[in-house]
């Protein structure tokens, strides 16, 4: 679903992404982990067809990330950290807006109705999005990102601001999608989210510093081979030393 080789991106003298390799199989939930400024967002933007790499090769859903950006954009679902919803529009109007953006005409009414049902949005259907609390926003954003049933979903910190009960329920939806074959790429610096992925790729200062299945990495980086690391927090601290590289 995603194949990247030596992808590099520079902004002036600053190397935001440095020779990154990444491979994500169908039905996998891959976590792209790192502190702010580690290069996650730049990498995602290249995979989504929003930014051209300076070096390296990459394919997303079989399309070339340099030459077939438009095709990629039409086939993926993307949910940003800031949710990109229109605060002055109602929940239903936001869904209609995104449906138009994704070019859904046939079966539009049915699709909107089914998303409203699936994400339990009936009671807020006519509410302006700007007046909803965080947990609801996340649901509306997720319903929007999936209107066109994309085979590949990019989620930027999908549950960083929501409470644990909502978070657990949200991830169950992701597991259902993944087990049915949707490929999901999650970027986050919240280790509780990272723990929930199948595989993670950890970035620091534009480079990949660790890559593998979560359980595997916890064993690999343990001080003593019989007691794997209890949390990914410890791995993150080991590998990035200092987390917050004051912007960048």
């Amino acid at each position, binding site marked *: 679903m995603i194949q990247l080789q030596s992808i590099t991106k520079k902004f002036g003298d600053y190397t935001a992404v440095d020779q990154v390799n990444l491979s994500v199989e169908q039905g996998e939930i891959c976590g792209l982990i790192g502190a*702010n400024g580690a290069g996650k967002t730049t990498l995602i933007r290249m995979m989504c067809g929003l930014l051209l790499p300076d070096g390296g090769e990459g394919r997303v859903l079989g399309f070339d990330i340099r030459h077939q950006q438009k095709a990629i954009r039409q086939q993926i679902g993307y949910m940003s950290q800031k949710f990109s919803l229109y605060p002055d529009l109602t929940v239903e109007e936001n869904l209609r807006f995104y449906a138009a953006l994704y070019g859904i005409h046939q079966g539009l009414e049915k699709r909107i109705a089914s998303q409203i049902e699936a994400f339990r949005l009936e009671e807020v259907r006519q509410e302006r999005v700007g007046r909803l609390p965080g*947990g609801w926003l996340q649901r509306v954003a997720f319903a929007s990102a999936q209107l066109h049933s994309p085979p590949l979903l990019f989620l930027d910190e999908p549950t960083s601001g929501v409470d*644990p009960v909502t978070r*657990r329920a949200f991830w169950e939806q992701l597991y259902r999608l993944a*087990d049915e074959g949707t490929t999901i790429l999650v970027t986050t610096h919240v280790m509780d989210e990272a723990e929930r992925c199948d595989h993670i790729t950890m970035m620091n200062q534009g480079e990949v510093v660790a890559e593998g299945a979560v359980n595997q990495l916890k064993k690999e980086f343990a001080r003593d081979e019989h007691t794997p690391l209890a*949390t990914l927090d410890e791995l*993150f601290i080991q590998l990035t030393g200092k987390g*917050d*590289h*004051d912007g960048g």
Partner: protein
Amino acid sequence: MLNVKGVSYAYRGKKALDQVSFTLGEKKITALIGPDGAGKTTLLKVMAGLLRPSSGEVNGKDGMSLGYVSQFFGLYGEMSVQENLHFYGRLNGLTFRESTQRIEELLHWTGLESVIHREAGALSGGMKQKLSIAAAVLHRPDLLLLDEPTNGVDPVSRREMWRLLQSVAEGGTQIFAATQYLDEAAYCGRVILLHQGRILVEESPQQLLRDFPFRLLVIREAGHERVKWMDRIRKELTTGEVFSKGRDLYILHREGMSIQGRIKAILPSDKGLSLEEVEPGYEEVFTQRFQDADGGESR
């Protein structure tokens, strides 16, 4: 000593807080934990005196000095770190000399020394939070209220933040912090779980762990049939929850030992899957409390 007594707060006909009572006493650090919309921010604002409760009262605040760190960055983005701190010192009635000395101490403590001349708006999320805390404790308040101080910061910064808060507490300041990170309870002498405006429980986190009646089983590497098994195991359970975390499948239950056999019967025998018992953590304890309070959904 701050005493919150029967506090209710209604907003647009909805009760954001419902008969909330507790006392801040000898426990130095208290975590306020609750889902979105539980009323955490409202409670902090009532305690800070920013909102007047619809009924009930907050006693013991006379002569008490307060620090408040809100969810939003409240400092001046175009002023430097140092200027912001001096400004807050002045606001809190410190002389320039007092401020200067205290700022030096705090800059060292927070590790913000290297950025004193940088504009506050240009700092990273974690640094902004540290600066907010430094500004709020310049005048050594008796009580420091924090609204989700570690929201959105990475693990290293989160740990540093709690170390900072622990040293603030050692300096004699009571700390009352709302958080969504359940594992942060470990830093606190006491937790208050808030749900739909009501206190569910007020207890030391260690005691809550000891009193937890559920047991936790895990199936490692359940992989890509996890949801299928999740649904089947759920049907077997009369208590608790089944949830997935990555490739592992967790079963939280309070049934007899027979549950292990019943689960094994569901799992295919040829995949080498094993059932293992593990210790529940804060996440399981708190999430279960909240789900119980939601009613219905958890059996």
